[in-house]
């Protein structure tokens, strides 16, 4: 089955076509550009290029990273996924974007992405499985996580402030991993999902009257 995967939860604008064949997944086409302000310009052309490159056959399902991530860019990816799926008449499934990084880790890993405002989105993974819901906080205010190392764009940015050793090369959500995590739903033809971003923060606004 041919699956379109997009993720815009980090500064990487990403799209891929992944073939899900039984238990095996093959990356057929992939585009990525690190451009925190270019989501709306780049994403659909990337999808177009991936579709052209992957050749014949309609897309059977769409998978989108649902964050957490800086909202404006994240929303572009999610609405693109939802609208493409609706237009193509196929289901769309959401996967936590951090799982696209943490799902590939070994041991105890702290996955951290850039949340802007000097904060990180984070979650702890044990042998690739996430423990609890993603959180947001300042790097220096991270609670004790028992992680052996930190990985992700946020880990690379705030390596100095984190209580564990951080990989300095930024790592972005792996689209094949996102497809793999959605594969049970894709294979069983689960109903299409209403995608809601993992915002983790409230809008910055105060009601005028209580």
């Amino acid at each position, binding site marked *: 089955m041919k699956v379109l995967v997009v993720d815009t939860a980090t500064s990487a604008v990403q799209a891929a076509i992944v073939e899900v064949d039984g238990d095996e997944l093959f990356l057929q086409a992939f585009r990525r550009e690190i451009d925190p302000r270019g*989501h*709306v*310009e*780049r*994403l*659909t*052309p990337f*999808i*177009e290029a991936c*579709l052209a490159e992957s050749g014949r056959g309609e897309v059977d399902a769409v998978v989108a990273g649902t964050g957490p991530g800086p*909202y*404006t860019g994240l*929303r*572009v*990816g*999610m*609405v*693109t*996924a*939802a*609208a*493409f*799926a*609706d*237009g*193509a008449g196929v289901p769309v499934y959401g996967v936590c974007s951090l799982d696209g990084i943490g799902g590939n880790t070994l041991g105890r890993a702290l996955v951290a992405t850039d949340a802007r405002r000097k904060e990180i989105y984070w979650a702890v993974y044990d042998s690739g499985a996430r423990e609890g819901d993603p959180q947001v906080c300042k790097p220096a205010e991270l609670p004790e996580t028992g992680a052996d190392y930190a990985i992700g764009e946020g880990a690379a940015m705030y390596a100095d402030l984190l209580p564990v050793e951080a990989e300095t090369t930024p790592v972005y959500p792996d689209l094949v991993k996102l497809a793999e995590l959605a594969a049970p739903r894709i294979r069983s033809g689960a109903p299409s999902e209403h*995608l*809601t*971003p993992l*915002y983790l923060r409230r*809008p*910055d*606004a*105060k*009601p*005028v*009257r209580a």
Partner: protein
Amino acid sequence: MSEPLVMGIETSCDETGVGIVRGHDLLADAIASSVEEQARFGGVVPEVASRAHLEAMVPTVQRALDEAGVALDDLDGIAVTAGPGLAGALMVGVAAAKAYSLATDVPLYGVNHLSAHIAVDTLENGPIPEPAIGLLVSGGHSTIMMVEDLAGKVTQLGASIDDAAGEAFDKVARLLGLPFPGGPHIDRHARDGDRAFVEFPRGLTAPKDMERHRYDFSFSGLKTAVARWIETQKAEGRDIPVDDVAAAFQEAVCDVLTRKAILAAKEHGVETLLLGGGVAANSRLRGLAEERAEKAGLILRYPRPKLCTDNGAMVAALGSHLVSAKVAPSQMTFPANSSMDVEVVSLADKLA
């Protein structure tokens, strides 16, 4: 091709609008609004609007298609507001429109929100005689536009140099203890008020201003004048006559808007004046414009109030006009442009 079937997507502010038109016929006008949520904050909060757009986008498209009784594959074009507007809000609509276009192979048109406010009148009153002068007034814009060719040449003659007229309505409504959005409440109270109760200032109408800002507006001084007047009355222990203040304030806004729009039409030898934008639903603006247009020998056109506010129908109407005029579709790479120049009617040839 018979009359083009076009879907329009609008997300420049707090309404998620999806309209479908065939030629000049409106088939569907689906709207999801976050205005109730925004009212809690006393104004439009961009992040609240953007969140609501994402939630509403696909369901609103589906609702419009159902209402029109058509399928995405039947469409001849998908038009979307590319600007001006709130950046994050625009991006949701632009991204969705691109994805729909790619998935369905229907040509995409990124269009200007202001030109769409003009184009919506075709749904009610048929083709627009060109040239025409457009007076667009809303919470986001107060603009006098020259429409030489709705498919290509639309220029701005003047605009507010500070607050939009609709913003002034909201702020004065708040001063008078009326709910958000203020426009309809001021309009209602003003009906029982005395327009000449106080002479509030008419911004940029002094001879010197008429040289430099002939077709421009300024409403922040008016808002301040109303605030000061209310303060003074309160300090002297008097009650505030809400109806009269509403009427006098509304008169000041409508007077200067219509006066300058009519002047622009006369000075450019244009015979048609169009009203658009949410404030064009204001009964006094319509009444005064009618009175003055008749006196000046101008034809005045405006659509029904529901089409004046932001909606998908207006975007679809402009899209339909562009398809009919055989304007080339936009490239997939066009951006959402929050401060988009009025002269860019369709992004097809300008920004891509």
